[in-house]
């Protein structure tokens, strides 16, 4: 259930006040790992010798489960920067800053400085500084609005909660041939003793989408595999609206996340080995960069011109 919350309410939801934290089952993580590795044996055995590691993250999972051909097309296409992606990265940086030092003085300047000091690997600075002035002004205003929402609605977290940002999770499986990986925006709580003690939070600057939930479940699975104890709570915070989707983590959550990750990992192994990708026409075919070479996709959308190349980049700049 989503709700727009102010500081105290948000804290209560993150803590899960009134809900007992689940006891740790010491055998659960090992069992999940065994299940994954058993399920991957065949797919890993089929990997070509030259393939080093198959990385499974939330993006590759979403793409390969949607359509294998879509994943391959995305991988082969140059990365297209969009205003939405840039805004998301900038708001992520500002959220990190707020959680870490509790101050955002200059949202635009602070976000750009954050990218610059890390080498601007995704080219956000180049993209946003290259926007036409009016579009850049609009993006600046959006980023400032998100920053205001964050600083007005997010509490300064107690250091005793051990808040850490952009925590990287890596779970090697099958001798490291397959690696489940993720970066969690905010992790709260220390290592579990008898009861689950960690809360994971993802920040989204865009609209609520149904696929945000399986992303979080995937992170809960990674945390369980990494630390031996699942988180007690996972949440998505929408900085544009102030909504918080929070839910407890139960065994069913982990099992369904595992099933999905296993299915995706097997498909990723198959695709990595050079097998012909399966095509699953879907509602995003019109935006797929692989549409010109995909007969089922063309049949679904009634054209062979993908929206992403025909007008998306232009639209992004035009609507910013």
């Amino acid at each position, binding site marked *: 259930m989503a709700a727009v919350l102010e500081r105290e309410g948000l804290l209560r939801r993150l803590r899960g006040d009134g809900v007992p934290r689940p006891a740790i089952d*010491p055998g659960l993580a090992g069992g999940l790992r065994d299940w994954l590795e058993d399920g991957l044996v065949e797919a890993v055995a089929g990997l070509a010798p030259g393939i080093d590691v198959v990385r499974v993250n939330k993006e590759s999972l979403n793409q390969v489960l949607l359509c294998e051909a879509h994943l391959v097309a995305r991988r082969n296409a140059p990365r297209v920067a969009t205003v939405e992606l840039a805004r998301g990265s900038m708001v992520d*940086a500002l959220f*990190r*800053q707020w*959680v*870490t*030092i509790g*101050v955002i*003085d*200059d949202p635009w*300047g*602070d*976000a*750009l*400085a*954050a990218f*610059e*000091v*890390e*080498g601007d690997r995704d080219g956000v600075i180049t993209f946003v500084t290259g926007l036409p002035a009016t579009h850049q002004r609009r993006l600046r205003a959006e980023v400032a609005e998100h920053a205001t929402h964050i600083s007005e609605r997010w509490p300064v977290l107690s*250091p*005793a909660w*051990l*808040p*850490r*940002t*952009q*925590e*990287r*999770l*890596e*779970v*090697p499986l099958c001798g*490291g041939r397959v*690696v489940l990986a993720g970066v969690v925006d905010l992790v709260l709580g*220390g*290592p*579990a*003793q*008898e009861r689950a003690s960690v809360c994971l939070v993802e920040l989204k600057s865009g609209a609520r989408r149904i696929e945000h939930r399986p992303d979080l479940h995937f992170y809960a699975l990674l945390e369980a*595999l*990494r*630390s*031996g104890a699942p988180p007690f709570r996972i949440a998505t915070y929408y900085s544009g609206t102030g909504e918080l989707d929070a839910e407890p983590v139960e065994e069913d959550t982990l099992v369904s996340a595992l099933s999905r990750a296993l299915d995706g990992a097997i498909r990723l192994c198959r695709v990595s080995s050079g097998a012909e990708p399966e095509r699953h026409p879907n509602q995003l075919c019109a935006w797929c960069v692989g549409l010109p070479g995909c007969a089922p996709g063309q049949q679904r959308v009634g054209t062979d011109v993908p929206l992403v190349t025909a007008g998306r980049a232009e639209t992004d700049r035009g609507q910013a």
Partner: protein
Amino acid sequence: MTTVPARVAWLTDTLLAPATEGVASAELSVLRADLVRDLQALGAELPAGERLQMDGYKIRTAHRNPERCMSFDTFVPSPRSTRRAVGVVAVNRCVHGHSPSPAGAVGDVLAEGVEDVSVAAATAGVRAPWWASWYAGLSGGARAVVCAEAVTWATQLLTAVHWSQVPRPVIGGRDDWWPCPGGTPIVLKGRAEVRSLVGRRPALLVVGTGRCQADWRIELGYPGLVAALGRDAPVAPCRVVGVWPQSGQVRVLPVDVGALRSTATAVVAGVATWVDSRIEAQRRGAPGAPDAVAVSVDGAVA
């Protein structure tokens, strides 16, 4: 009563368990002599006037990505290369009760670094940490990233160990240095995040990045070897424990003569790769980059 998480208790017990393997003085002497002989031969091949300073990062680079030895860039500080240097000082403060949390400790360490920079400019009596001048020149958004990376790193180390069980832990501390004797222009530098004593012998804890790789024995063996080369056998390290917080993996390497010898073999191979890259760089007329590196990519001060 506070319960210690099972993984934390296990890691701490493993670090501090009585030593089961020893290194005989004669064995260590032979190993040292063999290593000196091999490194002297490699040092003689280095272009005139050049000097190789090897650390764990360079050894790993030589083994995992030897092609990168040719294009080793001059070090540029970054949040990732700074987090360890700031983080160990912060953890030290927390463990010794000078700060209640990693976030507060990291903030203090960074603030003092900036202060040291301004004082050091006026007096030679104060030397600022290597990262401080760079950090002092950053704007607010960039400083926040440096702080955030260090807080995450420090929290991972602080919560990995049951500190009250560790007798007189040295957190961070000085790196081990072993200059190859006989005027050989090769120096080995080893580092561990935590050192504690098991009897008279140090036990080392090393924090890895990402996930444990197939060559973890070299990664853990290297700081053990460098520490052993500069000591007598009875006080050589007894074990090196590696922890990879991002993956939750732990590996334990008992330091015996077999582990030292296989690490020494890997070190010689790594040094050979670097020597080759320096010869090739000179042949191409490129500047000898590695000597210009003031700090390793993982943040070690040269």
